[in-house]
């Protein structure tokens, strides 16, 4: 039986700037989630996301070749090619969806992809357990 859920609260995981302006999120476990999810599980999710963002912004040979090629073609190549960053962002979206389906939704939580919040925060929505209130 499906039923609508009401939003009880929202928790925002802020960015971690201790290593510069690279996109990293704080791994500190918020107190509001203590009763909802295992700390290790949550920190594992955030760490995986941080690793994916590091990969997206990595200054590797691939991004360098992409940059040089783009420069030589007066950046026209970006019109027909997906950048490395965009490819990793798609992987991140898929990962978040998987995590939501497997781990967070059964516990009444929902992770919002940070790209929908301008890469500022990871929004965790806590839903009320209405099904138990009958």
């Amino acid at each position: 039986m499906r039923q609508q859920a009401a939003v009880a609260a929202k928790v925002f995981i802020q960015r971690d700037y201790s290593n510069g302006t690279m996109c990293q999120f704080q791994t500190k476990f918020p107190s509001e989630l203590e009763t909802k999810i295992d700390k290790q599980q949550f920190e594992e999710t955030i760490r995986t996301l941080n690793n994916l963002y590091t990969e997206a912004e990595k200054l590797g040979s691939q991004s360098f070749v992409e940059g040089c090629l783009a420069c030589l073609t007066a950046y026209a190549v970006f019109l027909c090619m997906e950048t490395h960053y965009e490819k990793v962002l798609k992987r991140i979206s898929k990962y978040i969806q998987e995590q939501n389906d497997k781990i967070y939704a059964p516990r009444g939580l929902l992770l919002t992809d940070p790209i929908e919040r301008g890469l500022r925060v990871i929004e965790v929505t806590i839903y009320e357990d209405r099904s138990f209130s009958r």
Partner: protein
Amino acid sequence: MKNCEYQQIDPRALSASPLSAQNPAEKKVQRPRRKWEAFPGKNRFFCDGRLILARQNGVLPLTLGLIVVTSGLFFAFDCPFLVEHLTVCIPMIGGVLFLFVVASLLRTSFTDPGILPRATADEAADIERQIDTSGSSTYRPPPRTKEILINQQVVKLKYCFTCKMFRPPRTSHCSLCDNCVERFDHHCPWVGNCVGKRNYRYFYSFIISLSFLTSFIFGCVITHITLRSQAGKGIVQAIQESPARYPLYSLCFHTYLVASNLTTNEDIKGSWSGKRGAEESGNPYTYSNIITNCCVTLCGPMPPSLIDRRGFLPPDEAIPAAARLRSLPGPECPHVAVWLLAPPTLCVPLRQPPDLQFQSFD
């Protein structure tokens, strides 16, 4: 600080009416709106949100006009003579440079510079709740800066009243465009847009190619005059006195910025120039290597646009909460605007998401 009168508001008034109450006939008439149509900044959009420009686009038409007219005159009057007396490569090189300049200019002008979308109502409420710990009923302006450590150096993050968030490091709010821009360099009236994280490389390639183009055209003009009159100054001295020196000055300045991983904003303010007495305050963002700094700035991975211009607005949120707030009384005082979002409760009750359902656990 202005003394504003607090007006409490029912958070449920901020939400639209539930879908079920909506007239089905009205639903059919509403076409899906894209996010750029409800964008709160002072920008103009073209091609259904694909291209973005500042509303105050300054002298972009003049810049384009100058480049096109100068190059046009060059191709019309100098090239025929020089092709005949020197080589056919001259108009070819000129043509390539011209195309590169125009492409870079248009790319700089029409690319999102790295605009940060404004905080949602929930985020703003969360930030307000975190910094206002007194819990008093009268609104007391909380501290608007936050200190963090970046590579063991203290950096102050400022709170942006307009965007309702603590600005990330190196982000600045452009008053002309009314947006927070990441790695904000400056607002350039010549290109009619801000120069920031996403379009700095295009801006740099614009000034490099423009310097080459103006030097090239001027060199060809001098050669033309010299060949015709068999008299005149040397090329180097001519360039030194030519109008080409202005783009060259700009190029030298921005090359210095790129090599030190600085923005114009930081350089003008002297953010890392050690003005803080004995304390060591170097640039925490530099890689201490000129080549690495250049690579990071010009050839680093291209970050995506964060404002999702062509995304569709949810059907029951045609007007974003921030815009709706402006129509409420007391818009002059931003403190009231934020306080209205966060009534003094711990959990902000929000509307039910109509399309999200959970399976029951029995």
